[in-house]
């Protein structure tokens, strides 16, 4: 399974202040082309729709976002096949989403919500209806952005990191092995056993 697990963003809750810089950056990077969002707030003409959700509890704050589960329950329940695994990411195809909310129910972390869709600064309309269209919105790890996830880049407290869990496990394994090797080398009575 080496290097096949889905990547995901994790938060050091001792550093996160809950400032929402990650939400703004997430929205910016996903609406640069689609809704002509520039570098300043004044260029925004549509509601801010991030794909991660800063959550504050009495003891901590952190953005909650998709973990790109290996056995993704959201993907499993989506009858429209709007959710798929592309590379190492779980991606929503907003055009296919009908807003049924099954993925919201299925996700144990609340990492998905329904948000209004906009393009060219205008609300997207449902086919044959003046009503606005919504779609499931969740982290796509900034798919297609060469610099990687915007949230990780902009965090003023460097609280976020892109987690490659397989690499992390190997690092931990090596650290554990090294620690044990030191312990054993310094304990001749153990060698005698």
């Amino acid at each position, binding site marked *: 399974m080496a290097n096949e697990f889905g990547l995901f963003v994790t938060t050091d809750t001792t550093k996160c*202040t*809950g*400032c*929402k*810089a990650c*939400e*703004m*950056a997430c*929205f*910016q990077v996903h609406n640069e082309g689609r809704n*002509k*969002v*520039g*570098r*300043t*707030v*004044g*260029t*925004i*003409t*549509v*509601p*801010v*729709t*991030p794909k991660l*959700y*800063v959550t*504050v509890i*009495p003891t901590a*704050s952190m953005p909650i976002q998709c973990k790109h589960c290996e056995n993704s329950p959201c993907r499993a329940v989506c009858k429209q096949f709007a959710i798929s695994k592309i590379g190492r990411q779980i991606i929503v195809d907003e055009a296919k989403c009908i807003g049924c909310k099954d993925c919201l129910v299925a996700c144990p972390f609340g990492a998905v*919500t329904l*948000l*209004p869709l906009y393009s060219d600064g205008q609300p997207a309309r449902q086919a044959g209806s003046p009503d606005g269209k919504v779609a499931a919105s969740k982290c796509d790890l900034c798919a297609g952005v060469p610099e990687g996830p*915007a949230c990780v*880049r*902009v965090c*003023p407290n460097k609280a976020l990191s892109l987690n490659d869990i397989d690499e992390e496990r190997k690092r931990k394994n090596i650290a554990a092995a090294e620690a044990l090797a030191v312990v054993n080398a310094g304990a001749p009575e153990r060698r005698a056993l």
Partner: protein
Amino acid sequence: MTVIAIDQNLCTGCQECTKICPNLAIEGLPHQAQKINEDKCVMCGQCVQKCKSYVSAAEHGLNAYLGVRKERDLPETVLEPLFAAYNVTHIQEVKRALADPNVYTMVQSAPAVRAAIAEDFGAPLGELAAGRLAAALRKIGFDKVFDTNFAADVTIMEEGSELIHRVQNGGVLPMFTSCCPAWVRYLEINYPQMRKHLSTCKSPQQMEGALFKTYGSKLLNVPAEKVFSVSVMPCTAKQHECSRPEMVDSGHRDVDVVLTTRELAWLIKDMGIDFLKLNNEKFDLPMGDYSGAAEIFGVTGGVMEAALRTGYELITGKAIPALDITAVRGVDGFRTAEIAVGDLKLKVGVVTGLKNVKPVMELLVAGKLDLHFVEVMTCPVGCVTGGGQPKLIDETDFETAYKQRISATYDHDKELPIRKSHENASVIKLYEDYLKKPLGQLSHKLLHTTYCGDKKHH
């Protein structure tokens, strides 16, 4: 009068703003809504630039945005996100004045506005828009489109003369600049005993305002009481400054209302003007005429450089060898230089970022600040990074924006035919026809002030 506020329903208590507040005026517990202590707030608006806690459809509901927009008295054409920390807007007052046929509107814009306003229309960071700014203000319907830069040149005439007078007559030194209202307020709150070190000059905004309703009113034959004086500033503290009780030397409120750069961008959009497609226009004469020296007021070290360009010639009678005085440029929090002005070795200091002023003030209090003249600006690299400037979505853009806005300012200085305040023909005429001489009787009445200490003004 509240200038800066934090919406208690929106603030999540991340305290990012408390970390940057230069006067520790933001109070509260972590993860609870923060409050501004108005007795301490210098109204620089850096918290407004920093705050990311927005009215969210996911968190507050789809209609919450409309409620907050209405509560803040913003036009319905404003669509951008609204954040917990904000400055109180006066855009509706300006709209009413513009629509009133009995009101004669005069507007001025600070140099830093033209270095950033285009950003809010999607232009690259720091794209210079002096000509489009003048065109937009005219299109909005202001009767006269003047410019704060004119008064910046006048400031140099007055402040330069004041410095020379202090140096030659054993006056109080070092003299500190007084154009930054957040700095003036900081000094009044924390070091009131040092007030005599402040230049008695009003800021360019207040000089221009006082001239609108006296010199301008006379020139244009419009009674001063009919004039509505608007200024467009990169600064949130300017609204506080124009409301100070001292600022009525024209016999009226010298500046009626301040719009920030962001608020002007809203007004331009509200009027349906396509800013980026406007053709360049000029500011109106005479109070829209300006030199490159005035333009660089918008960046840290600029007032100092402008003062040196003129002071050198006033003292030595010779032209300064190099117009670009790089010794006072830069972005370090406190930098000093020694400039040879004839026989005088003028020792100058430049402070940028109000947090950097405290150690300098402690030196002053201890009698160890061996300088003649010190410029202080509150915001990170001067007014181009003011609290009323276009707000960057990502902080990772701060560095680029700062750099680009600074270079736009110096580029504009370089391209102007006149680059020294005392060579501004309209300023020369102002003195010939009206003020007579710097530090003269009329200058003292209109352009200088004694800051009367700052408790709460309402």
